[in-house]
């Protein structure tokens, strides 16, 4: 059954039908990009009953250092705000202990700009499974530019140091009656990670999804250059999905899943590309729980991987397949 998706750039005048939220969930971040959507809501007098700010203790130091560029600007919000201190590394524990009562028919907004992907994946599944929420409005503000050390595109790192390839909590999938695996990697700029993923899953087949069209024309090449080893690996297939539209990603994944050649393979997806692509992956996995999502969880995320803000997007997503 086809659905008309809702995906748009949010302008200063709040060009979004929804004018009231029961809960607006976001993460405390290292610059203004973290709060752009909530401030636009405030400016346009959108009703928000509860703002919940996830304050990750792993970021405390960086946030303090970057006060001058707006990292603590959330303190200026006029909405009723709850700061929830928790760990970035354990979304399961954080959500199990979260003391808020979200009713089934609540209007929820989540700004994913500064949530890590493993965290917001589990968060959305928690909203679906525990809170029984059907629909969520997602906001995402893209950065103006990314930090490339020495100016070379192979020098981008979203994290430093050790990584461990993990299943994202609550997305273990089901490999029963499957003999082999298919690994779908949403390519990012951090080339080390795709090699680690490939090594860890050791799939029978690998499909690489390059974000294209991308935020900026040459980003499509940067992700390919950075991931040269897996791109050039014999047998790997390269396909495309728009960087900014999660529904494109969803459609692509559906078309892959429906192909006969992959029917007997256990599908693993690694969302290391853009956040909107990751959102598309999340949506797909929520609708297809037999899919496994894996992620290279770093010991330490890089504090600053991008500069400034650019557009803010909003997406209306249905957490359940039939809603």
């Amino acid at each position: 059954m086809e659905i008309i998706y809702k995906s748009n750039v949010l302008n200063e005048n709040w060009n979004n039908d929804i004018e009231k939220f029961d809960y607006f969930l976001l993460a405390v971040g290292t610059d203004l990009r973290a709060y752009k959507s909530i401030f636009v809501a405030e400016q346009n007098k959108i009703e928000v009953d509860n703002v919940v700010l996830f304050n990750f203790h792993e970021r405390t130091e960086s946030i303090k250092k970057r006060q001058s560029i707006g990292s603590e600007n959330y303190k200026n919000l006029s909405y009723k705000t709850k700061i929830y201190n928790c760990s970035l590394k354990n979304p399961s524990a954080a959500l199990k202990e979260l003391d808020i009562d979200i009713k089934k028919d609540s209007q929820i907004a989540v700004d994913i700009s500064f949530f890590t992907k493993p965290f917001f994946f589990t968060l959305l599944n928690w909203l679906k499974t525990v809170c029984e929420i059907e629909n969520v409005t997602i906001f995402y503000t893209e950065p103006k530019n990314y930090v490339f050390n020495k100016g070379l595109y192979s020098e981008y790192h979203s994290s430093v140091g050790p990584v461990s390839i993990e299943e994202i909590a609550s997305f273990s999938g089901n490999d029963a009656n499957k003999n082999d695996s298919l690994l779908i990697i949403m390519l990012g700029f951090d080339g080390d990670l795709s090699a680690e993923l490939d090594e860890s899953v050791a799939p029978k087949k690998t499909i690489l999804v390059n974000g294209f069209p991308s935020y900026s024309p040459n980003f499509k090449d940067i992700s390919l250059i950075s991931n040269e080893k897996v791109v050039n690996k014999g047998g790997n297939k390269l396909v495309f999905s728009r960087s900014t539209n999660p529904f494109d990603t969803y459609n692509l994944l559906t078309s892959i899943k429906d192909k006969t050649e992959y029917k007997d393979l256990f599908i693993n997806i690694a969302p290391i590309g853009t956040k909107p692509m990751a959102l598309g992956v999340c949506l797909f996995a929520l609708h297809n729980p037999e899919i496994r999502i894996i992620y290279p969880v770093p010991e330490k995320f890089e504090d600053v991987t991008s500069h400034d803000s650019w557009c803010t997007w909003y997406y209306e997503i249905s957490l359940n397949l039939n809603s």
Partner: protein
Amino acid sequence: MSNNTRSPKLSLPSEADLINQIRLTSEIVWEKKLDKSHITEWLTNFKGEVFKKSYEDQLALWLLANFVFYNENEVKHLCKMLYSDFIHKLIVEQDVANSIDINYKKILGRSRFYSLGQPGESSSYILYLFRQQNEIPLKKFISRLDNLDQTVDTIIFVDDVTLSTGEKSQAAKYIRQLKENNPSLKTKRILLLTFIATDDAIDYLQSENIEVVTCIILDKRHKCFEEDSMVFSYFNEHLENAKKFATHYGNIVKPANPLGHNDGQFLFGFYYNTPDNTLPIFWAEENNWIPIRKRYHKNYQNKLLNIGKYI
């Protein structure tokens, strides 16, 4: 060699690093169309007339490393994205009471696709790919506008780039001309589907009642030598030098537009051609210039290509 510009503190990546990056890009994106000999040959164009030869080579290689090439697979994907965006745009306007399938059939029923420009121009080629990739029935593509079915209310043009505004906008000029020759067009809804468009061009065409649907929007960050240029976001200190360098050599090959048509300053091309808004140092052939990305010009002069001795 000019000594007017101060030396930037942060050096560009070394020639070896840049060639390595270009090698990877060539292998993975450019379908291996570029190899070391091409690059070496192209660099011979730069004679150290503006800066030291080695620095000019670095600037040239930096620009080349940032050149975006759209290969065949990518262009085909753009065709699909464009169509998907077009359908989404129109479906959203339809009656929600109808099923999507019914609405889609309605949209297609009253739309016709037409080439932007003469047969033989890139638009025709793209139209072919567009039809093929999206499996659109052939009868939706027309070659005449003077005998349109009455049920048709939307004419859709498909092209690769729409970058200019005002008098320089070829799209606006062409559609205006079509309207002059086919008055019935004036009452139709006009859409232009284009792979790449600038935000300025979109606004301009909107003012001409041409709705633009595009996959890639270019803004001032994508003009090579503008202040906010993404190409020089990390090496900002080299921006002025690079502009000087590109202008100097651009003047040798295209004195009217040393930085590209309409001062484009763009750095991209397609597997089938390079637009003239892109820096001419990449594609020009005048004055014995060796291009790295050939541009196939439109022959407006009825000049016969040199076939050979025997015709």
